[in-house]
């Protein structure tokens, strides 16, 4: 039984898998099976049954998302599948590995997904800095057209699909699916209001599905091996495997495909090899820079959507950032808020003008210019910026997650800085 479907083609030397090797290792079986033997609704049912949840951060059930796409022909026209490969979440590098090493896996997943929702055009929206992935993907797309996996009459059927690679100009907000759509249309990358959801009115106003790279990489395997197989890969409630990653002062930072629901401790201590000598663990952001801190007491929790959610954080992208005892949480959060403030699209007030206020206070605090009222001001900012619905999209609430949890778990650091003191670890100015 295949237990690491996503990385089975990833080699130690990270060489890219070409189409022949990919085919030789079971590639394009899932696509062939679904396109030539299954109806779109049968495919959809398999994905629903598999319990696959989106790997882009929110964990939304993929089958359910796809089921919102209108399948009648009442309004004829294009439908789109878009792969979200913008991967700019701080600390996240899982999609990169998948795209650089095994581009065909993503393309095959996109072919299956497009077939399921009967999309005739698909896009990969790729982070601009992922130059190597851009090369591997464009090579792979070429190979697919040559092989008849893309283009007119795929595998001899009457299903046709065109796939385009779009390299982003490089903004974090382009990863938000509706900002991504605007950006693809050549507009400012501002998120759109929902409803209407992209599934009914997305790219160019047409039904559109946006999925994460990792999500799409799972699709062909599920269609090939069935939903039960996929369910069994997971340890807890969730199904499948997950690309987990660890960064920070650990022995062996990296990215691994593990059963979803593996505990934090196992990922941190076994796979990442524990903390570097001289550093001890203080906390971690479980799923990228926009998730709440977890601490020692949470180490034995399973890394799945439900468990991490109940602990007050989010599984996010599943790639953790570790805080050690020689890094000041105030400085760390300041770095993150600087990033988010800079990446704000500038559309809505609390984010555009609230994050810089937050960043400014954290800057003052970490450089020894903190004031006692700052804690209260930060709490106020967290309250107003940090709630979903207060802002136009999820960037700002995400940005506030590390801050609000850092204030909860590391109050002494904030208090020290608020008294105007410097700390040994924060850079001073």
């Amino acid at each position: 039984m295949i237990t690491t479907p996503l990385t089975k083609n990833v080699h130690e030397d990270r060489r890219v898998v070409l189409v022949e090797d990919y085919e030789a290792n079971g590639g394009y079986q899932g696509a062939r099976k679904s396109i030539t033997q299954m109806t779109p609704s049968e495919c959809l049912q398999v994905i629903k049954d598999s319990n696959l949840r989106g790997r882009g951060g929110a964990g939304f059930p993929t089958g359910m998302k796809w089921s919102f796409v209108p399948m009648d022909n009442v309004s004829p026209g294009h439908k789109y599948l878009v792969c979200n490969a913008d991967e700019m979440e701080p600390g996240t590098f899982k999609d990169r590995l998948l795209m650089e090493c095994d581009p065909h896996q993503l393309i095959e997943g996109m072919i299956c997904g497009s077939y399921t929702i009967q999309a005739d055009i698909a896009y990969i929206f790729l982070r601009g800095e992922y130059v190597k992935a851009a090369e591997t993907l464009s090579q792979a797309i070429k190979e697919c057209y040559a092989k008849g996996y893309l283009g007119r009459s795929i595998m001899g059927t009457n299903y046709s699909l065109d796939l385009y690679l779009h390299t982003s100009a490089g903004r974090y907000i382009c990863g938000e699916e509706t900002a991504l759509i605007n950006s693809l249309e050549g507009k400012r990358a501002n998120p759109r209001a929902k409803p209407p959801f992209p599934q009914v009115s997305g790219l160019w106003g047409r039904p559109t599905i946006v999925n994460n790279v990792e999500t799409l990489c799972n699709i062909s395997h599920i269609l090939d091996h069935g939903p039960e197989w996929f369910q069994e890969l997971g340890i807890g409630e969730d199904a499948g495997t997950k690309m987990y990653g660890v960064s920070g002062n650990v022995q062996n930072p990296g990215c691994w495909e593990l059963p979803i629901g593996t505990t934090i401790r196992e990922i941190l201590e076994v796979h990442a090899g524990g903390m570097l000598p001289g550093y001890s663990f203080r906390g971690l952001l479980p799923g990228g820079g926009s998730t709440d801190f977890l601490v020692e007491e949470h180490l034995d929790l399973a890394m799945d959507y439900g468990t991490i959610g109940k602990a007050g954080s989010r599984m996010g992208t599943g790639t953790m950032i570790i805080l050690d005892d020689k890094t000041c949480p105030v400085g760390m959060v300041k770095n993150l808020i600087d990033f988010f403030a800079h990446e704000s699209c500038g559309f809505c007030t609390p984010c555009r003008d609230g994050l810089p206020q937050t960043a400014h206070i954290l800057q003052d605090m970490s450089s020894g210019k903190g004031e006692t009222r700052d804690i209260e001001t930060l709490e106020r900012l967290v309250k107003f910026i940090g709630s979903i619905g207060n802002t136009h999209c999820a960037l700002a609430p995400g940005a506030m997650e590390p801050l609000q949890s850092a204030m909860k778990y590391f109050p002494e650091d904030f208090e020290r800085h608020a008294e105007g003191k410097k700390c040994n670890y924060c850079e001073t100015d």
Partner: protein
Amino acid sequence: MPTIVIDGKEYEVPQGENILEACLGLGLDLPYFCWHPAMGSIGSCRQCAIIQYQNPEDERGKLVMGCMTPVQDGARFSITNEAASSFREFIIESLMVNHPHDCPVCAEGGECHLQDMTVMAGHRDRRYRGLKKTHRNQYLGPLIHHEMNRCITCYRCVRFYKDYAGGSDLSAMASHDHVYFGRHEDGKLESPFSGNLVEVCPTGVFTDKHLVNDYTRKWDLQSAPSICPGCSVGCNTSPGERYGKLKRVHNRYNPDINGYFLCDKGRFGATYVNSEKRIPAVGRRSKDGLFDAIDSSQALTAIAKGLSTSKVIGIGSPRASIETNFALQNLVGQQNFCTGISETETALVSACIEAIKESGAKIPSPREIERCDAILILGEDVTNTATRIALSLRQAVRNEAYNMAEGLQLQSWQDAATRNLAQDERSPLFLASPHATQLDDIAEGIFNLSPSNIAHLGYSVASLIEGKRDDAVTKTDANDYGNIAEALLKAERPLIISGTGVTDTSVVKAASSIASALVAKGKETYLSLIYQEANTLGITLLDQGQGPSLSNIFEQGENNNIQTLIIVENDLYRRAAKHKVDKLLQAADQVIVLDIMDNETCTQADIVIPASSFAECEGTLINFEGRAQRHFPVFESKHPCRPSWEWITEIGKISSNKNMLEWQCFDDINKACSESSSTLTGINEVAPDRKYRVGGRKIPRQPHRYSGRTAMIANLSVHEPKQTDDTETPLGFTMEGHSGDRPGELIPFVWAPGWNSNHSVHKLQTGSERELKGGRSVVKIESKNLIQSKQQVKSVSQNNDQDHFIAVAMYKFFGTGELSSQSPGIIELCESESIELAIEAADKLGVSNGDGVTAHGVNGTVELEVKINDSLISNCVGIIQGMPGAANINPGEGLSLTRSENWVRRSEIISSDQLGSKNV
């Protein structure tokens, strides 16, 4: 109507609104920035936050944006809830992080929505202790001043400029807290609607440059309800004055016509009122062109004496009010009163009137135009001749988007969602024109044709609608025309637009036949015909085709039949060829000119009399729909000018004119006019008369914070003079009086407690249609009353052979208007006089841009500068109307062109030099 609960009270609200709109409609204050009543919601500012409760048990509720939340029956909300109010306060605090703290030197101060909302939201304490972001301002042309530091990033400007008005040279740039609203580089904003940024921007980023350079706060402006004299649309305006100078023009809300927006000609084209070229006094022209003031009563007596002893001709004007023209008509008698409109134009206007009567189509208001769902424009260059309508057309083509949105249960106010859904899908608009127009970007089909071929297209479409085939049409044309016919037949409210602009009566007739065909098919058909000036239709209706034509006057002059010629507000050199006008003015023994500004006709007059501008007198104008509207004096002019109707009445009285002896005031003239013919019945109901009072009080022109009444004249006297009584109108030159609900035609300016900006207009509105609470009179001349002129026009000889070019009239937004183009700011933007040639024509003549050509036509020769217009069809040349040489060429005539060998090219202007000298 759904019932909702706000803070424990039940309200009925209009179906389909959002909760912000609903609250404002109920008179409940909820602060907002990005929402706009005409542009809908995008949810960017987050200022309109309100608590919505999920169910009857819910005590906590959820913060939602009012502008993004549809009202639903039974929904429960709270505005006052602390979670919502503290959030709203936080939003202001955040907006203020980078906003300068210098309201006292900001041009928006005192009418600033940000000031109002700051007070409303209760923000006071600033927690941020960092530096503010600053930006570099741009030079945006002579009309609009830019001060980016005041921006609160509400996105309204770009949404108006690009999305609503179709402009392309203003955008949001950069991101996070660096978003910048401006052009890619310094330069004049290109849209003819750019001035609306002044009102659309809730802060002082975009302000009226003319006002900024000679500043007065809104509360110190004296205003009156007025009508834009710029074109035949008749937008409602609110001009403001201080120190005897017209300082600025703001939009005056009229839901039928201009709604919330004006064009730049209307907004910036009125300051000619302050011009040094105003006629300074009653005077006589000496031979050397100097002006000798003379005693006005002596002059009037002399004129009156001439009236009884000689043959008198009066020439009126399509830019003067009904009352002025009526007074002149009474003074000289109908048989001696000429409208002063050229033959060609008169024939066109008659064709339009006939079209309206015959076709049975409805004449739409601009608001109704916005509801039309298939449009065909025949010849008329709407953006240049009836600019505000072009903005309405841009909304009309969005009906398809609203249809699509309905399918997804989206309301029309969900602006971003609707635009994202529809993308480039538009309701069909077809246009036929001899050259490119500024509506091409929204047209489904563009037909570049000569005027006569436009008419042909029109007739073919009419036949197709009737189900007949036109065999003379080629196959491809038949296809195209078939598409037009099909789109018009498919529409619920098809609209045909034409007018006098293309100067070919057959085009108007073709428009009429399409409209008739649609009416015959049972369609709710609209026909909109555009005229050249603010009162073209009015004076035509007054004249009823009875008076002599302009060429008849020229003939009478040639036969030495005219002793006294009275010309009122009309520069004849713009109406007919120079040699004809010269002859006429020389032939008459005595030429008397009443006008606002000095012009070529004045220079040939024996006596010149200064007339009040639209901003200094009362008058009624009839717009393209036949809608009669009143403008009121904004201020008492410091010039010795008086309304033309007043001068004329006085002359009439001295000469014991029977009718005129009884006229004591404007209302008497107006009433006499309304009684004089069935056509104009009702124009006395256009606005309340001078006796109108509310609770015994007049309506003040000055806000109640008007300051410095004594200080203004302290250099002369420290005693406050008694304010002048206004005995002519229901308005007072004071700050005291009734300022509650008033009829729409008597609202000088908008203001409400807590709402100092123009947003206060919502406090004057009621119902989902946003009618004015105080009501408003709508007087439209019914088409059955329209009287067709019986003038016979000799058709101009058309020389259509190979060597001849057909002269087509072209219009320039800045330049064609006689008075507006003399307003500071606009003067700089007026294009120079030129003849536009297609590339083929230029090649044939061996000329390029800037060279000269000599045009030989029926009126002799004219030398003009060449401007190449590659959109023109090759056998046509464009003659820009309103320019000095233009009247020497009749649109439609065949011209032979030769290269002017002795032409001196104008020296090149280096644009950077020009920029440096401008006040940024």
